């Protein structure tokens, strides 16, 4: 059997989709030839505006010559099909080329509508449709100060974005009373206008341009029907599209009253073996100006040629979600009150500039439409509700109200979706397809994209696809076990909740309450840490001794030879000369290795158990306190001298650093915590690299949270600006306690923040707006901790009973004879078996 010869007129997104589909059906059966009047093969017109943010024509390409050649597809560029001969089944091009067809597909797309305004054909007047158009616009931009877009619809705003990117003063002129008149209602449109104006773009609504004439201050002057005018150097027309049906008109293929090639449910036109798909096609008197319906038509036409008459095009959803000038906008279903009896819920936040409106049926059970501006998180859920005609929850307002805390929008998880629900409309991937992919071994978004193409088109479904993926993985038992160890079937946070709620004071009580076995080196220190954070008792109480790592038990960090470090606290790194002398004397007397740390204090190494209390007695007598270098707790508050000494200092950073260090010292937390306080924006204290960072500005303190050094450095996120001392204390109290309460064992604030659903914004909700209604409690807990602070070393040296444990042998005054040292650079170092100390020796 000879191959069927298919000619595709137009190689845009939809034409290409058709070719891809038909050769996918059976490449041996078809010979395909495609024509394009453009100089390029199909490219992604949806992403066209990225051309201005640096993407090249190659980046936007959907295919290339090599792919077509490999698959035996002939293509002819720069040659427009100008005539059709139905009797002999030929197409004729502008260059006179004649090609025969068995089946003909018209995918000629649309052209931009340029309103018939006198003067609209001048040099710097453009349309916004092809890569060539964009290149022309770029060229005009180079010699322009002001640019105007005529048309405030979806494409017009994209064109506006292009002008902003070109660096010209941008104006948008719209005939209708609001922007995006088709997709948005008045509320959404006016908020969008405000947000766009905040970006410095001028928006003029209800303006009808009557003529474009020579300007006085700029190249052109636009005169409006209301008598006003606007001067500009360049103009982009983006006043809608019209189906490209020129070829059909000329050859007598039936077209609609207002244009568009009439098609049936199989995408067949009125002429035998001629199909039309995409924006040139008119189905039920409707032109679909989006890519997803065009793709559906391409699939339907390919199926029909392949002998499948069951697949039909029966209309398409016109919902859209996109980012325009950085502003999220979405529209679903019918939003212009054409549905009888429809009622609506509106959420309008003028502070955060968010507008959401949900339109429901007269009986309140089904969704009619929705408009979202500024926050489109609900899009996925709402779209599925609409597409699947699902029943709304009892109180539909929860669907658009900001979530308070982690709870899901009531009962609207992805589990509720039917398998037929379309998740990715660009590539027609259903929930069932994702389930199959997961069943076949797909475990993450990367694999899902590779195997189903979901979320690789416009990307709008990414969040939803991820939710479906996660929910499927979960249902297949991929859940990550959060149990802390074999003794407790709970996470650290759950244990913390149990301890707090049941007022459990000891590990034994907890073990009886909800554990098994004796515990271990994982759960014991974790529980000890929680107990200390909630009740802040002296850590060497008998009940706690067996729980702690040796560091906590002996109030020093064990070094590799079994000796300990001694690190007195120096709040803010400030120390008097007398203090420094005492430290020097102690170090000398006990022959301790001495080093200044990165945290602006002094480390003394090599103290043996029996020496610790004697050393600390001397330090405490001189006014020092423990530095908690051994605990999962506040370590240091690094600071500069600020406005006390520095010529540039704006605020008293050293004074505030000392206040903060004294406030939070001793507080146990899931991991160590560091602060930095800088007296001006020169940031000498490196505050942004700390868990809590403060930088002084003329307006007050800027508070950063979640910074980290170490293995994975991270700058803190700016939490709030221009704070007073008192505000800083209040917010830090709350954040610190919230972290202590909810973080996992050994989780630094940076990781905790990154894992916090909703991130820094959610944290702001909790801390600044008290969305969980827990701030009073958090503050009270912090106050109680601050009030119960004690220097553990002071308490220890005052208790003969506790001191008994600070000797090497319980039954002898001998000391550990297993220790050996070597002197390097005038100080001692441990001489243990494996240390390669020789290379340090001069």
């Amino acid at each position, binding site marked *: 059997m000879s191959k069927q010869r298919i000619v595709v007129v137009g190689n845009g997104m939809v034409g290409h989709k058709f070719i891809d589909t038909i050769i996918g059906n059976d490449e041996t059966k078809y010979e395909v030839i495609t024509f394009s009047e453009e100089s390029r093969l199909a490219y992604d017109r949806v992403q066209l505006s990225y051309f201005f943010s640096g993407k090249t024509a190659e980046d936007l390409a959907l295919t290339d010559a090599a792919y077509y050649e490999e698959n035996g597809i002939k293509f002819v560029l720069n040659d427009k099909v100008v005539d059709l001969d139905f009797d002999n089944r030929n197409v004729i091009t502008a260059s006179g080329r004649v090609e025969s067809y068995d089946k003909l597909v018209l995918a000629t797309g649309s052209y931009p509508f340029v309103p018939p305004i006198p003067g609209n054909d001048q040099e710097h007047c453009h349309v916004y449709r092809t890569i060539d158009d964009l290149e022309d616009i770029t060229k005009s931009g180079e010699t322009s100060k002001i640019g105007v877009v005529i048309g405030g619809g979806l494409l017009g705003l994209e064109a506006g974005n292009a002008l902003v990117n070109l660096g010209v003063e941008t104006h948008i002129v719209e005939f209708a009373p609001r922007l995006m008149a088709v997709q948005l209602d008045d509320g959404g449109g006016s908020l969008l206008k405000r947000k766009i104006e905040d970006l410095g773009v001028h928006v003029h609504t209800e303006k009808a341009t009557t003529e474009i004439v020579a300007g006085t201050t700029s190249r052109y002057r636009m005169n409006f029907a209301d008598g006003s005018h606007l001067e500009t150097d360049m103009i982009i027309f983006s006043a809608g599209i019209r189906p490209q049906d020129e070829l059909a008109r000329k050859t007598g293929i039936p077209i609609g009253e207002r244009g568009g090639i009439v098609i049936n449910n199989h995408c067949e036109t009125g002429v035998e073996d001629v199909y039309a798909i995409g924006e040139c096609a008119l189905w039920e008197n409707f032109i679909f100006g989006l890519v997803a319906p065009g793709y559906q038509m391409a699939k339907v036409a390919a199926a029909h040629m392949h002998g499948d008459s069951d697949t039909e095009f029966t209309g398409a959803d016109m919902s859209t979600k996109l980012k325009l000038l950085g502003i999220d906008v979405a529209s679903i279903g019918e939003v212009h009150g054409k549905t009888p009896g429809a009622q609506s819920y509106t959420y309008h936040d003028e502070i955060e500039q968010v507008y959401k409106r949900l339109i429901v049926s007269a009986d309140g059970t089904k969704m009619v439409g929705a408009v979202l501006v500024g926050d489109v998180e609900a899009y996925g859920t709402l779209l599925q509700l609409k597409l699947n005609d699902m029943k709304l929850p009892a109180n539909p307002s929860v669907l658009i109200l900001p979530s308070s805390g982690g709870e899901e929008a009531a009962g609207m998880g992805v589990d509720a979706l039917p398998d037929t629900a379309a998740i990715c409309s660009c590539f027609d991937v259903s929930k069932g397809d994702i389930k199959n992919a997961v069943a076949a071994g797909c475990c993450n978004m990367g694999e899902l994209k590779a195997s189903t193409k979901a979320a690789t088109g416009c990307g709008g479904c990414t969040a939803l696809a991820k939710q479906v993926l996660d929910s499927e993985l979960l249902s297949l038992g991929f859940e990550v076990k959060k149990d802390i160890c074999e003794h407790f079937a709970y996470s650290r946070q759950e244990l913390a909740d149990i301890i707090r709620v049941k007022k459990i004071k000891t590990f034994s009580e907890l073990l009886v309450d909800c554990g098994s076995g*004796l515990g271990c*080196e994982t759960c014991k220190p974790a529980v000890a840490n929680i107990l200390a954070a909630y009740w802040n008792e002296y850590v060497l109480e008998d009940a706690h001794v067996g729980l702690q790592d*040796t560091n906590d*038990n*002996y109030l020093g960090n064990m070094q590799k030879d079994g000796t300990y470090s001694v690190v007195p606290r120096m709040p803010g790194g400030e120390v008097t000369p007398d203090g420094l002398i005492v430290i020097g004397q102690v170090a000398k007397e006990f022959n301790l290795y001495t080093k200044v740390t990165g945290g602006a204090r002094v480390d003394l190494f090599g103290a043996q158990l029996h020496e610790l209390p004697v050393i600390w007695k001397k330090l405490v007598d001189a006014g020092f306190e423990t530095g908690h270098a051994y605990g999962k707790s506040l370590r240091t508050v690094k600071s500069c001298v600020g406005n006390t000494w520095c010529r540039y200092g704006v605020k008293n950073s050293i004074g505030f650093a000392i206040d903060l260090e004294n406030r939070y010292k001793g507080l146990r937390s899931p991991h160590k915590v560091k602060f930095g306080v800088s007296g001006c924006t020169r940031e000498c204290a490196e505050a942004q690299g700390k868990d809590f960072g403060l930088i002084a500005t003329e307006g007050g303190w800027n508070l950063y949270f979640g910074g980290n050094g170490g293995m994975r450095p991270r700058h803190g996120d700016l939490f709030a600006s221009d704070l007073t001392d008192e505000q800083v204390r209040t917010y830090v109290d709350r954040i610190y306690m919230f972290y202590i309460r909810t973080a996992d064992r050994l989780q630094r604030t940076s990781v905790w923040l990154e894992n916090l659903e909703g991130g820094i914004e959610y944290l702001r909700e909790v801390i600044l707006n008290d969305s969980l209604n827990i701030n009073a409690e958090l503050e009270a807990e912090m106050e109680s901790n601050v009030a119960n602070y004690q220097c553990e070393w002071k308490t220890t040296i005052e208790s003969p009973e506790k001191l*008994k444990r600070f000797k090497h042998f319980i039954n*002898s005054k001998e000391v550990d004879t*297993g220790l050996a040292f070597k002197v390097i650079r005038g100080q001692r170092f441990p001489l243990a078996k494996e240390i390669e100390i020789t290379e340090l020796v001069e």
Partner: protein
Amino acid sequence: MDITSSNTTWTDICPINDLTPDAGICALYNEQQVAIFLCKQSSNVYAVANFDPFGHANVLSRGIIGSTEDIIYVASPLYKQRFNLATGECLDSEEHKIKIFNVRIENEQVQLKEAS
């Protein structure tokens, strides 16, 4: 009281009150460092060598007592290797085994004896 270094007699080490429940202490016995642990839940006392063969330091008495299934162990404070308190076997490496000692409470005294 016999304090000669006999392998066959029990030696008094310290009063029972010197032990901290669920924690360890170190005793000097026959010129050896011995780590002694009192497990409150089982009321058992255990005694093993204090030397950590991984970290090469005398520190096991300062480790944390734990259990896994029915085994009671101490985890070294240096690098967390676990040693079965009843047998001296290391749970994390078959190559290392530490010495164990006989231990008992008699007349409120903790007593040690070389294991036979």
